[in-house]
């Protein structure tokens, strides 16, 4: 699938897919990378090294800093794939240097799929 490059980089890993938007500030623990938002479909899941797939961000703009903190603490996702990246996630991914692509059909990706993201070429590939 070809989308739009938000932040450059390449990564391959296991997909973790959320149908709900993700709010990083208060929603993800920047120390552990675990989703802590009550009742969120990914609650308790760790996003470290995953290809994190979700429609778009939500919530506080401080979320950008949380994404940066995840990277600094070594618990960031390997790449982010969105339906449509808004400014909170775009800002976080770019500042943190995490590969990020949007504008692809994320419904084709299932949790556990092996996914290759080449943000430089704006491509997302399900490899297994």
């Amino acid at each position, binding site marked *: 699938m070809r989308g739009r490059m*938000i932040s*450059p980089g390449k990564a391959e890993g296991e997909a973790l897919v959320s149908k709900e938007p993700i709010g990083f500030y208060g929603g993800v623990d*920047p120390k552990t990378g675990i989703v802590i938002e009550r009742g969120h479909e990914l609650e308790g899941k760790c996003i470290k090294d995953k290809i994190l797939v979700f429609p778009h961000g939500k919530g506080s703009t401080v979320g950008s*800093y949380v994404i940066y903190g995840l990277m600094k603490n070594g618990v960031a996702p390997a790449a982010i794939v969105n339906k449509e*990246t808004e400014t909170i996630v775009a*800002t976080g991914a770019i500042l943190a240097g995490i590969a990020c692509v949007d504008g692809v059909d994320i419904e084709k990706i299932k949790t556990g799929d092996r996914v290759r993201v080449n943000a430089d070429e704006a491509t997302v590939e399900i490899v297994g």
Partner: protein
Amino acid sequence: MLRGEYGEVIERSFRLLVRLGEIYGADRMIPVSSVQVAGVSYKSIGDPGLEFLEDYASKGARVRVPTTLNPPGMDLEDWEDFGIPADFAEKQMRIIDAFREMGVMLTATCTPYLVGNLPRFGEHIAWSESSAVSFANSVIGARTNREGGPSALASAICGLTPNYGLHLDENRKPNFLVKVSVELKSNSDFGALGCYVGNIVKNGIPYFRGIKNADVDQLKSLGAAMAASGAVALYHVDGITPEARLMDISGLQTIEFGEEELKETYEKLNTGNDPDIIILGCPHASLREISSLAGKLKGKKLKKRVWICTSRFTKEAAKKMGLVEIIEKAGGRVVADTCMVVSPIERMGFKTVGVDSGKAANYLPGFCKQAVVFKSVDELIREAVL
């Protein structure tokens, strides 16, 4: 810049601006002459923000255009006296140090235009702090979008902003006509008007008719309230703001604001009785506002706490004029650098706050878990003196 030849910080900052520009359909980058950076209070940005700013500063992030700073979460000199917890103060100071290292002017105010960051008409700037954005666009006629903390900082580091939104003539036209048929007397009346209109127009551009006169403090109050209850970044006032006469107002959706709407807005914003404390200066008080408060308190004694928040610059001037002494003698305080919205007042034992600001009345219930008494300064002070 995108190839990293200026280093990682500039590359990432520029990449951020380019991407935001693409998301919003900008055709190119334009230089900015100044930046106002928000996201300074430890209460708002927490550890994630603190760590980001320290990391960025240590990687050599430096601003290349004059850049001023929003209020932190405490008075940077007298914080202990105000009961700010020590753990909070330590982290807040680290945030300030990071900004200092990046070369940011430590103005610590939401009213940069009162302390020397004053753009001229038509100048392109990249400001955050919604009330300052509104003032710069509307009262001065400078041009800025509503930037967030990171995008404003990126603009400061690159000296550029993507050319879209309010930088372009076609996006500065009004889309609502507000007919004001009641005489607005106090700053709080202007704040009430702002709250009412912001709620309706959201991020639209209102054009006001029927406001006979308004001083800079009243316009500051109006714009701040609209930016808080809605997301208004630009407004025009017939006969008062500089771009109003350039605008075509035929066929706009009309909003009426009269005696009834004014009363209704006061009722809606009042969620409490008998305030524990009265806090003025949202946005930061001008020297004229401090002077006016000192006039009301001269020779009086307060039975309630009264604080007025302002910039360090303004407080220093007020001190030299003897105004701080008058206010303190009555039992009040002049708080510098910070304000009630970004300081941890809920951790300081207050439950109900008296304010004359529409912006504060909007934010205090959510950000600080406070009940609000919203009145004019005259009424608030009358009820607070012995």
